[in-house]
């Protein structure tokens, strides 16, 4: 069931409790728990089909879960930008914001002051008369975020605000996101960029509808099982399946104990087993890659892979 909560008081939080969503036979979200707190930025990370959009639509009240509970503020206290910016392409920048202000009952004077300020800060003040459909991708995304936060929502939900956006627009978008959080909103954003997730206060990693990891970036990194080593070449044999390329070298994940077995096994892979001097401290990108890899290896046991 969905429970629009009372107005945001101290200690309040929004999120999902044991939420499942089904599309036909497919389980798009599988018992997902998630918590977004006021004044904090939460990043929902995952690849194509991970369930990020589905979770965000639940939080925004656009989709009802099959089971579990969504905690969200009243509709008027939620701001939502769907993937692809959600602005009207055949309205101008100013008209889009005026429409949004009316729909969310922002007093006209307040709406025009806040619009002008946010547009100026995001570099959109000179394109007020331009149709949203004629803006560049980065500009359109910035307009989408401004429209979603115009009415100062308690919960701001942004679906991939920065995908495909250049670094300068990305900086502007992050300024808007920080501004909303500094104003007390709980901000939830979906992203496929791990460096961006590392900037958020809290991170939720989804894969195929299930939670792979959750917590602060530091907690997720600390909880990564096993160790990580760096080699120049991809290791041969079984270890090669646990290796991936990063920055011109190979990261090799050793789930605790596994490589001990490898090292005593005869064969060429023993020669490339990395020494302890090559152990690296993982970052969030490493920890998330390990989580995805571990799941993939569990699904496709050794010797049965298709490649």
């Amino acid at each position, binding site marked *: 069931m969905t429970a629009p909560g009372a107005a945001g008081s101290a200690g309040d939080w929004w999120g999902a409790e044991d939420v499942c969503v089904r599309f036909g036979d497919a389980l798009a979200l599988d018992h997902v728990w998630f918590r977004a707190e006021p*004044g904090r*930025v939460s990043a929902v990370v*995952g*690849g*194509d*089909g*991970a369930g990020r959009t589905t979770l965000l639509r639940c939080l925004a009240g656009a989709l009802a879960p099959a089971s579990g509970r969504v905690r969200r503020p009243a509709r008027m206290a939620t701001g939502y930008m769907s993937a692809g910016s959600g602005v009207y392409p055949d309205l101008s920048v100013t008209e889009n914001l005026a429409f949004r202000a009316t729909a969310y009952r922002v007093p006209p004077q307040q709406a025009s002051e806040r619009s002008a300020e946010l547009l*100026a*800060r*995001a*570099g*959109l*003040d*000179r*394109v007020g008369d331009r149709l949203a459909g004629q803006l*560049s*991708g*980065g*500009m359109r995304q910035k307009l989408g975020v401004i429209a979603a936060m115009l009415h100062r929502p308690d919960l701001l939900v942004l679906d*991939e605000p920065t*995908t*495909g*956006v*250049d*670094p*300068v*627009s*990305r*900086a502007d978008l*992050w*300024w808007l*996101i*920080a*501004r909303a*959080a*500094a*104003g007390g909103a709980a901000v939830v954003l979906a992203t*496929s*960029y*791990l*460096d961006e997730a*590392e*900037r*958020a*206060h809290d991170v939720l990693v989804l*894969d195929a509808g299930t939670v792979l990891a959750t917590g602060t*970036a530091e907690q997720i990194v600390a909880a990564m099982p096993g160790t990580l080593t760096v080699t120049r070449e991809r290791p041969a044999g079984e270890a090669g399946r646990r290796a*991936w*390329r*990063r*920055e*011109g070298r190979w990261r090799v994940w050793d789930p605790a104990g596994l490589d001990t077995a490898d090292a005593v096994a005869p064969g060429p892979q023993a020669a490339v087993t990395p020494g302890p001097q090559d152990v690296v401290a993982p970052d969030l*990108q490493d920890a*998330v*890659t390990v989580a*995805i*890899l571990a799941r*993939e290896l569990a699904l496709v046991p050794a010797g049965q892979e*298709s*490649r």
Partner: protein
Amino acid sequence: MTELPAQAVAVTRAFGHFVAVDQVDLEVRPGEVVGLLGANGAGKTTLIRLLLGLLRPSGGEIRLFGEPPSRHTRRRIGYVPQGLGLYDDLTLAENLAFSAAAYGEGPEAAAVPAPLRRYRGTVTGALPLGVQRTAAFTEALAHRPDLLVLDEPTSGVDPLARARLWETVAGAAAAGAGVLVTTHYMDEAGECDRLVIMAAGRVVARGTAREITGDTRISVVEAGSWAAAFGALEAAGLPVALVGRTLRVPGAPPDAVRRALGDLPAAVTSAPATLEERFFELTLSSGQTEGHHDRRP
């Protein structure tokens, strides 16, 4: 062996009065991966279109494998555009067959590799984005190109899938191809042997990530309340970025940041800039900021 897969010499391209690419020199050597970085409007896409022979330069010269772009040189290029360039209403196998035929290759170039085999009969538009991306790479590499041009190849994929795409790119380079790749994702700069940064149509920096970042430093603020510090720095007109609970301020020395914070309790230190922060400075100082004209100090 000394022929350069791609070379631009003082290349300029104007559209009316607008100069999209201005006196650009660029080289892609065999076996190297060159990353082309730039904000929207920097001229990256125009430069790629010039290199592919889809546009003619207004001035300067483009040479592919030592000669001007032609149908002959196009055959030696593999290209993955931003939109992937697959036909949505053909099956995956039909897409690969069509591309192989267009390059004058035999049926072996149209073979569907094992990881994609289960999708071979599916209409491409209905496939997950990750599968489409792998198919576009397969198509671009099937005729063993000597120059591979990739326009934002990894947008929107998970980190493991991204690592695997880079593995493919590195494999092509190891086999001798020159690779030119654009990305908005600065973490991927580490996958490139060399970077070229464009802003306002010009090359503003080139070298490795470390060379480009150099000894640029930024200010870092750790405050009791990041939100209050954010408000104070913003009011002072400083370009402040939130990273976790710390604030990073490029282009402003610690004492200026300290003054802007007034009597707010906060520690202000200086730290090396990231490549993204350095990129940001280069782009702003070039005067190229889409929409922005006089916003930042």
